[in-house]
């Protein structure tokens, strides 16, 4: 009888060793290696720090304007691939007709201090960047009209 128990328990321990992941229980009742799996996913948004390291001219203009705290990729979209290799992915051309009104179209629920326009009345179809420089949009604030070329690198 003792032998049957011993074999049964040994089998249980062997099965347990096979089926319970190695890192289970390291931090709690879960597989600790899952943390690494999740942390290893690829990044899509490079972060404004990566943009500013090359595009310092744009940063210079933007940091003095009212869009200083708007991160680059809020408008330009996820560009980690471009940050890794500037030739691999070129940022898509921005459509100001969609982009500006996403934030600035008037709406009752917006904070009262936020600059809002009824775009149809405000510009009547004229693109926003005819008058406003997107990196420093308040009229009269922009120091230069032609920003956008990278200052560093081979180009």
């Amino acid at each position, binding site marked *: *009888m*003792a032998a049957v*128990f*011993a074999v049964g*328990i040994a089998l249980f*321990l062997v099965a347990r*060793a096979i089926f319970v992941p*190695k*890192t*289970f229980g*390291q*931090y*709690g*009742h*879960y*597989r*600790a*290696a*899952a*943390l*690494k*799996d*999740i*942390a*290893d*996913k*690829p*990044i*899509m*948004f490079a*972060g*404004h720090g990566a943009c500013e390291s090359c595009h310092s001219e744009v940063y210079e203009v933007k940091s003095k304007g009212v*869009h200083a*705290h*708007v*991160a680059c*990729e*809020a408008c330009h*979209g*996820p560009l980690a691939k471009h940050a890794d290799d500037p030739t691999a992915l070129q940022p898509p051309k921005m459509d100001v007709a969609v982009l500006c009104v*996403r*934030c600035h*179209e008037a*709406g*009752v*629920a*917006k*904070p009262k201090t*936020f600059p809002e326009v009824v775009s149809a009345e405000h510009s009547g179809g004229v693109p926003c960047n005819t008058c406003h420089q997107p990196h420093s949009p308040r009229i009269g604030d922009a120091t230069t009209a032609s920003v956008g070329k990278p200052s560093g690198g081979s180009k």
Partner: protein
Amino acid sequence: MTITRRRLLYLLPAAAIAWDALIAGTPEAAPNYNMTDHWWGFLIDVTKCIGCGTCVQACKAENNVPDGYYRTWVERYHVADWNFENPQVDSPEGGIHGFPASGKEGGKNFYVPKMCNHCADSPCTQVCPVGATFVSPDGVVLVDQTYCLGCRYCIQACPYGCRFLNPETKTASKCTMCYHRITKGLTTACCETCPTQTRQLVDLKNPNDPVHKFIETHSVQVLKPQMATRSKAFYYGLDGSVR
């Protein structure tokens, strides 16, 4: 020595402990990021939200969220009069394309971004039958996609409606607080792209974090405090009508 029943019963626990030590293996070498140094949360300044939906778009792009599902979303509230028990709330497509004009003038109107609250006493992790969801040592509620059975217990348990069953993987899915970003020194995709700094990542173990300082010195509250989930999504300027 003969093995009697009594001796066997003494022997087995000792053997089990010895075997457990044998199979445990060596813990993984610690990476550069030290989990025990952080305790992550969010600060959401409702007074700044403009309902642009950039956060929802960014989350989708960063985390490959399927169409029609949201790890974060923005709600628009309209409280017509004194009766804040009955607000009118809408969130067309999670607010991913912003909000059309509501036509509701008067009363109170405001936006509230929502996402996983990364509760320290999270109801969702407590109900998982297989140990596939957990609170990490740095305070992030995560799902182990390889162990999730897709039983949906956690989806029902979350008082904030933050989880969904991913239609592609058939496993529970939720905000990871961009764990792949915060462990590399970046902020989350939603906090990175929020144009008004409504959303900000906060390290509650770092006393020098300016966002931590803000929470320390301002009146903030969490959603559904009566649930005692120890939520770590702190809302500033939240109206009583928000659920």
